């Protein structure tokens, strides 16, 4: 899941061959090219999703061995809902990490959004839809505030957002101070974000089928256009293999979810956010600027990209998604309380979100990664949390383990970066 399409890795330097010759390439040639490409990306130190999936399977097996309720449809379905709050926050983090910055305030901002919603809706009687819009807008505004300080005043992002972490957590406690814990309407819009499930089996299967078919059609269309233009394209067999793997995963998930309460609304929203943000980042001019900024600020500036505006925009995205994630967290708890606000300030959500992004393969060093990395990463994080909760592991130990997982993920990121630099150097010799 690299940012920019296939990375062909030809054997040494050769002139780029033109359309006619490429068209003649048989599928064996294409397959060989693809094998080289995979080998190249491993050598360049790019971690594919395979390693994370393997890790996830190990984690599931271990917890299942310790407690046979872990892989029950009920628990898996709950994990599917619980990943959404952290996952949405982590998608925001991905946008910021891609431009090689960090947003440490997302935990506090999500707490602030939850509190703002609860105060407005429950205490002030503002209609729910309006309170939701205001809460999300608060997140966007906070992000713009951070971005402006960083981009236009040149304050390092980690300091701005570290200050933000305290400021917004303080504001949350201040808002809740008068009323203490606010319980939100359990039948309301926000509560239904996490409680609503599509009971009919058909819904989950339809989503699985749509996703698979959409992938297949897009891949085939892409292949067709490359082929028509006489350029290298993925072999037919590979597209079918990828589609088959996706179909197995999607239908297995749908089957499992249907054995409990059906497809959770929260999960559907999360998947839509992932698809849309991935598309925007990889396929639009706007997304290209984001990757460019992560790859080289000076290069981006000289190419005429408004670096400051992109920076502010990324912090706005991260603030917005933190607020949306915060609404899902509040929805899961059906309350906003000083206790949870303090927990948000302690950074657990922040650490989980950063860990989810980095475990999935988004680099802390900018320019590499994708929103999809969050799905795998947050599954790992939430599976560990859920397993430990099932086993009744105390908080103190959970903190240490989560911190350790984050450290391991970051170390792997740094190592893969070094591997990439090494292979870059070895190839920098004259050809």
């Amino acid at each position, binding site marked *: 899941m690299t*940012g*920019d*399409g*296939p*990375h*062909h*890795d*030809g054997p*040494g*330097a*050769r*002139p*780029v061959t*033109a*359309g006619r010759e490429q068209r003649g390439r048989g599928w064996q040639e294409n397959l060989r090219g693809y094998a080289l490409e995979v080998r*190249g990306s491993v050598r*360049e130190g790019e971690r594919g999703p395979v390693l994370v999936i393997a890790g996830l399977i190990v984690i599931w097996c271990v917890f299942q061995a310790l407690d046979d309720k872990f892989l029950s449809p009920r628990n898996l379905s709950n994990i599917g809902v619980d990943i959404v709050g952290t996952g949405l926050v982590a998608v925001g983090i991905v946008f910021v990490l891609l431009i090689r910055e960090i947003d440490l305030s997302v935990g506090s901002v999500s707490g602030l959004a939850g509190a703002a919603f609860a105060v407005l809706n429950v205490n002030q009687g503002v209609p729910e839809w309006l309170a939701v819009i205001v809460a999300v807008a608060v997140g966007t505004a906070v992000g713009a505030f951070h971005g402006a300080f960083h981009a236009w005043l040149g304050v390092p992002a980690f300091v701005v957002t570290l200050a933000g972490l305290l400021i917004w957590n303080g504001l949350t406690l201040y808002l809740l101070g008068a009323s203490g814990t606010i319980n939100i309407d359990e039948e309301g819009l926000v509560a239904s974000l996490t409680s609503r499930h599509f009971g009919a089996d058909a819904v989950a299967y339809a989503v699985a089928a749509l996703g698979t078919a959409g992938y297949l059609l897009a891949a085939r269309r892409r292949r067709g*256009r*490359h082929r028509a*233009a*006489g*350029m*290298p394209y993925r072999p037919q067999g590979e597209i079918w293999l990828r589609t088959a793997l996706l179909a197995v995963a999607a239908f297995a998930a749908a089957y499992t979810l249907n054995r409990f309460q059906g497809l959770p609304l929260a999960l559907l929203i999360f998947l839509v956010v992932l698809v849309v943000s991935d598309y925007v980042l990889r*396929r*639009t*001019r*706007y997304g*290209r600027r984001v*990757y*460019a900024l*992560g*790859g*080289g600020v*000076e*290069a*981006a500036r*000289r*190419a*005429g*990209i408004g670096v400051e505006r992109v920076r502010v925009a990324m912090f706005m995205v991260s603030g917005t998604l933190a607020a949306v994630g915060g609404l899902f967290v509040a929805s899961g708890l059906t309350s906003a309380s000083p206790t949870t606000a303090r927990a948000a300030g302690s950074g657990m959500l922040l650490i989980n979100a950063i860990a989810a992004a980095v475990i999935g393969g988004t680099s802390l060093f*900018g*320019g*590499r990664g994708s929103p999809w990395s969050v799905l795998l990463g947050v599954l790992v994080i939430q599976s560990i949390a859920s397993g430990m909760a099932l086993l009744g592991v105390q908080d103190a130990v959970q903190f240490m383990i989560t911190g350790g997982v984050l450290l391991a993920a970051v170390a792997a990121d740094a190592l893969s970066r070094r591997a*990439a630099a090494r*292979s*870059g150097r070895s*190839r*920098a*010799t*004259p*050809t």
Partner: protein
Amino acid sequence: MIHPPVLALRGISKRFGGVQALVDVDLKLRAGEVVALAGDNGAGKSTLVKVVSGVSPADRGVIEWEGRPVQIKRPHDAHSLGIATVYQDLAMCDNLDVVGNLFLGREIDRVGILDEVEMERRARDLMRTLSIRIPDVRVPVAALSAGQRQAVAISRSLMAAPKVLLLDEPTAALGVEQTSHLFDLIEEVRDRGMAIILISHNMGDIKAVADRVAVLRLGRNNGLFDVSTVTQEQIISAVTGAADNAVAHRARPDEEAWP
């Protein structure tokens, strides 16, 4: 055959605080020629490039573009005139592939959606017409050698079809073979009628690829030579200040006729 100058600088002066970086510098550049800009460290070569590329505008002096005076106050002004610059650090995004870098800031899109196929096709065409040897246009730039990166950076600057190309010490990081590839590329570009300013320390490079060489010393013109008739010793003595009389070395009589 003598073309009219595409770019003419007259009396360019630039001061940084207490340092007078450029004093009354003149330079003319015709289509289809390579002018080397030589000079010791601190002679004002990079400052002159920054003036022309709009990164740091001149305090005084006239810049004429195809015979009419123009203002270059921002990089954007230089771009829109048709002046492209390849800096020594190349300034590329290592994480993006060759296609992504070539089209950075001028992507081809259809209603905001990138047209990767068209960009890749044009990138392949460009690499082929310039005979640039890289593994593939879809490899990240980080995986290319120094010479390949240089070639990509130059072809990137050609995307906007400029009339003047500024190359800041392009051979500094290259090996012998890569340098000769680069010279092939420079000649290819020159033969298409582009004017090139080549900043270089290296007398061998200057003799190999430049048509004329303009020497700067302490921010002033200190000689303008025709490369085919000048010796390396003459250039070096102008660079080091052993020969300070610039006018005596004027290469062509027509230079004097410039108003």
